[in-house]
């Protein structure tokens, strides 16, 4: 047997998702006309937020929350960070990035440095504005709260994986008078971002960020692939529901056996 026992369903499901994305990236490369992504207010507002900070002459703050380098949320954050850092470098707006995870911190510093380099202003990059605070959740929150107030942050952009500190950040940044854009996949924290922030990216909307912000047709192609995966998911759920309702013993149907036999 070439495939690991109990992992075949996992592998197949993963491959279907990944291959669909790949197919549309491939087709977009080949010149397929890609449709527009629906308006996502939270992403639309990013440039507005940077603009506001620029006008006020105050910094933009960015955080990826508690995500590690092995969290997909952090990958999404990097796409947004790359964009924001480039804009900030271009408009000479200070960008502060606070961190919870050392590994993410190191990578973030590279991203921001590179953005300044590409904007032709490597000298304007300030290493001290990319800061590691603590890898304890609330020590990280405490340090960041202080920064919101002391640095008078004008825009606060939070994208990534968050836990209870989400609302601490959102309220403290509100008190500091910052415009806020927040996005996370953590369903438990979304309600607080919805309530306390100006714009909110819900769940997978953060994964469309790279395509949305860059408008690169190839990346948009991958988002089309995401939508096709969703259509596949619909089909699967409907078939599963039909089986659950019309088969005498659904647990014995091939689909159930395949998906549950892990």
């Amino acid at each position: 047997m070439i495939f690991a026992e109990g992992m075949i369903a996992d592998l197949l499901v993963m491959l279907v998702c990944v291959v669909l994305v790949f197919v549309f990236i491939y087709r977009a490369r080949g010149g397929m006309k890609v449709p527009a992504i629906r308006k996502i207010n939270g992403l639309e507002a990013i440039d507005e937020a940077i603009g506001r900070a620029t006008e006020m002459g105050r910094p933009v703050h960015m955080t990826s929350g508690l995500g590690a380098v092995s969290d997909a949320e952090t990958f999404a954050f990097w796409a947004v960070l790359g964009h924001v850092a480039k804009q900030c470098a271009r408009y000479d707006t200070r960008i502060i990035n606070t961190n919870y995870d050392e590994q993410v911190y190191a990578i973030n510093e590279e991203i921001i440095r590179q953005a300044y380099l590409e904007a032709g202003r490597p000298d304007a990059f300030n290493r001290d504005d990319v800061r590691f605070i603590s890898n304890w959740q609330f020590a990280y929150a405490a340090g960041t709260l202080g920064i919101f107030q002391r640095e008078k942050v004008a825009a606060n952009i939070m994208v990534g994986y968050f836990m209870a500190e989400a609302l601490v950040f959102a309220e403290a940044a509100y008190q500091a008078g910052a415009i806020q854009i927040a996005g996370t996949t953590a369903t438990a924290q979304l309600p607080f971002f919805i309530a306390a922030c100006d714009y909110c990216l819900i769940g997978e909307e953060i994964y469309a960020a790279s395509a949305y912000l860059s408008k690169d047709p190839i990346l948009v192609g991958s988002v089309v692939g995401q939508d096709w995966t969703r259509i596949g998911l619909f089909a699967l759920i409907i078939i599963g529901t039909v089986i659950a309702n019309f088969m005498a013993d659904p647990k014995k149907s091939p689909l159930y056996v395949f998906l549950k036999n892990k």
Partner: protein
Amino acid sequence: MFDNPTIANTVGAIFTLFIFSYLWKENALYRLAEHIYVGLSAGYIVTMNWHTTLKPAIQQEIAVDKQYYLITAIIIGLLMYTRYFPKIAWLARIPMSIWVGYGVGYVLVFSPAPFITQITNSFQKFSAKYTTWYGTNTVNNILFFIFLIGTMMYFFFTVKRDNPIMVGGATIGRYVLMLAFGSAFGNTVQGRVSLFIGRCQYLLGDWLHLIK
């Protein structure tokens, strides 16, 4: 000093009050507590990383158990420090790219299982023995299905909302999300309030002994 609970509780209580003072205004006492807190957290991590991970790896796993492959892990990790030396700083990209690769592999390996569980849990038999109107029953099962599908439709990125099914689904989805977020918010209030109740019980009970 280390055995006296009154001193211990008083120290704890003073720091508790320093942190609460932030609610009024960011101030010097909060800043003091904040910096001590961050300093302690960092000191703890240094201690723990050394005693529980690095020291056993070097002294036991490499030296005694002869797990020599771990030497490469330490070398790769140490490459991160080249970032402080501009000429060789690019070497720091080696550990970074390995970590990101590990992360990507990890997502692609360990996300399918919970994803499949979420999918199979959505295969729902509609007919159910009636328990209560708010519990298990056929109507609720059907509603769950409609709400689920509608909310999933809301997230379509590139499919145009130009037919009644898409519009209807996405509209249902928007309201379901609002219900979900509202209720999750309301449900969290209880937990957050109990955090402060805990601090009050500490301040008023353990420290001041005003609560029996």
